[in-house]
């Protein structure tokens, strides 16, 4: 075990709702001061996990530890956990001041102390002119700041954020994301941030927990999640446009090993031992990101070799600086990312090469990466 005691420790956490499993077998260690993102499609159990940590849901099985103390049976009021809800859950009938002061009043802090701390927080979040405004009249950005301020005033052990930027229009969203990141760095507080937006998770998180169907798929840094996805799900979920997958057969010829698809074959001799150790059958999924597919000429310039794949351009979608090109490989469509200056047009035939250093291999049966 690490010498530092984790702030939060989840052990075999499981939650069922009327027989439906929302979270299953979740283990997680969160260190003091860390920014962790729970990332996954809606219904993957990320919010449920957050609510179990807060005490708003009771786990069906498993344990939650806070600083080494089991808190399964501790009521939410006593957990000292801050929670920022998706819709901020402000007390609409009250003023910004009363919203901020609520937690301190509950704790029976003296009036002067409350006033001092509320004004301090208001200053930090630029809410001073709004202190007497009713919460129901605030702009979204101000609502978010009130929700954050209100929660931070109670000095929580950990701050849980449930998709706080979800309702905010693009543009403002990026601004508030940056604000949040700066805030976390200033405060050095532990935060768990739930989102279904990979961009948010990649920019905010020290580590990301990717979840799917109630299970943890991978827990790693944003870089690792992107470059070393451990499962087919993570590989397909992270990255835009998503990773291309081609189903192939593994075949050994003499002392060389290949992945075959029709008359295409990619040599994987150097990975032979690991493949044979890990894969039961001979079916392997080859994953390649759109940005790692190159036209043959360009690949040769960079000194890349490998199977030249004949393709036909099916569709070109220009983005700001890049173009997404749909390529037909037999009956399969894969996506390639090319510079905006590229002159590829629909119907054009060409050959491309998959950057051999960037190829990901997955066991088709277990859907796990072969590394």
């Amino acid at each position, binding site marked *: 075990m690490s010498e530092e005691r984790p702030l939060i420790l989840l052990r075999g956490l499981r939650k069922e709702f009327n027989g439906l499993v929302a979270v299953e077998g979740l283990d997680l260690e969160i260190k003091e001061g860390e920014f962790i993102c729970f990332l996954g499609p809606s219904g993957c159990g990320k919010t449920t996990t957050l609510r179990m940590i807060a005490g708003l849901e009771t786990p069906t099985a498993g344990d939650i530890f806070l600083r080494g103390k089991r808190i399964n049976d501790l009521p*939410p*009021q006593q957990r000292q956990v*801050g929670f920022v*809800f*998706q819709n901020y*859950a402000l007390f609409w009938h009250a003023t910004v001041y009363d919203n901020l002061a*609520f937690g301190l009043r509950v704790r029976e802090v003296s009036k002067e102390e409350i006033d001092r701390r509320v004004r301090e927080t208001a200053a930090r979040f630029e809410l001073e002119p709004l202190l007497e405004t009713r919460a129901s009249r605030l702009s979204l950005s101000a609502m978010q700041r009130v929700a954050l301020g209100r*929660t931070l005033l109670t000095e929580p052990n950990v701050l849980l954020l449930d998709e706080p930027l979800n309702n905010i229009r693009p543009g403002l969203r990026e601004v508030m994301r940056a604000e949040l990141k700066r805030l976390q760095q200033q405060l050095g507080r532990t935060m768990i941030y739930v989102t279904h937006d990979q961009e948010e998770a990649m920019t905010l998180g020290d580590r990301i927990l990717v979840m799917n169907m109630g299970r943890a798929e991978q827990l790693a840094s944003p870089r690792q999640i992107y470059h070393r996805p451990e499962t087919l799900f993570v590989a397909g979920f992270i990255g835009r446009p998503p990773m291309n997958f081609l189903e192939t057969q593994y075949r050994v010829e003499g002392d060389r090993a290949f992945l075959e698809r029709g008359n295409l074959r990619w040599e994987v001799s150097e990975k032979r031992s690991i493949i044979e150790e890990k894969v039961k059958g001979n079916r392997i999924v080859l994953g390649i990101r759109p940005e790692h597919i190159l036209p043959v000429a360009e690949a040769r310039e960079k000194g890349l070799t490998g199977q030249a794949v004949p393709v036909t351009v099916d569709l070109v979608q220009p983005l700001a600086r890049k173009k997404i090109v749909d390529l037909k490989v037999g009956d399969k469509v894969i996506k390639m990312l090319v510079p905006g200056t590229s002159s590829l047009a629909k119907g054009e035939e060409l050959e491309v090469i998959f950057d051999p250093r960037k190829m990901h291999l997955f066991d088709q049966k277990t859907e796990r990466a072969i590394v």
Partner: protein
Amino acid sequence: MQTETNKGVTTARIVETRKLGPALRFVLALIVAIIVLLPVIWILSISFKPVEEWKADPPTLLPRRPILDNYKILFRIGNPVGTVREMVSSAEPVNRAFLNSLIIAPISTVASVLIGFCAAYAVSRYQVGGNFMPFFTLTTRMFPPAAFAVPLLFYYSWILRNYLKIDLYDTHLGLILMYTGFTVAFSLWMMKGFIDAVPRHVEEAAILDGASPWRVLFTITLPLVKGGLFATTLFVFILNWTEFLLALEFTSREAITVPVQISRYATAVGEFYGPKAALGIIASIPVVIAGYLIQRHLVTGFTFGMVRE
């Protein structure tokens, strides 16, 4: 989905009426207003009419010779003349009925809304009673009150009186209990609607700030449903204030209420339209005042909480 459709329909209707042109719209509105207001105007008019105009043929919309006698008679003020005095002398003065109504209706209203609110909170937040119990409370409204009247009368005037030595017949408490019981289902269901509209997250935020369930209820939920609470109170108050059948059945002299008193002006001697109308007008005053006083809360109550989910 449901509201979307409703919105669509309403918008469509508004657009349709807009097409009609202002003149036609005004005429339509006028017709509706006349249909709605005519009975009220008629009662108001009769309450100022002398006896010979009550049943005049052809009828007069406005009294030819307006008098205050109908009102004076109710409270036995001054010395009304002629037939009216003779006709009304048999009836009770209205003071007692008015006082009774002013005791019974507010108390049973507050009791009903209080119980209804607590029950609604339990049902909405803790699913107390599952699906069955909240629905079951509605059975008190499923039968016509007349169907309850006879068994209840048997209960009040026979079982309670003879076996438990509790006499609730013709008492304030007797009617208060009954009114509370009959309206509590309304209170529950109305308040449940308002409480359901308060997002659970708001309460959870207060809990995570350290607040106890009671504190959450009183400092967060209650203020948020304040408007709904006022609306429910007004609604239940109107039910209790105007209730006739049970009051008629369960009172005879001491605890009669205003609606019963109004019915007393129709006897074998004749119909006392004038005093009847006058009492009707007076009886509507508390409801109008109550409605006016809480108007502001009704509006804010309905706009708060519902809009921002």
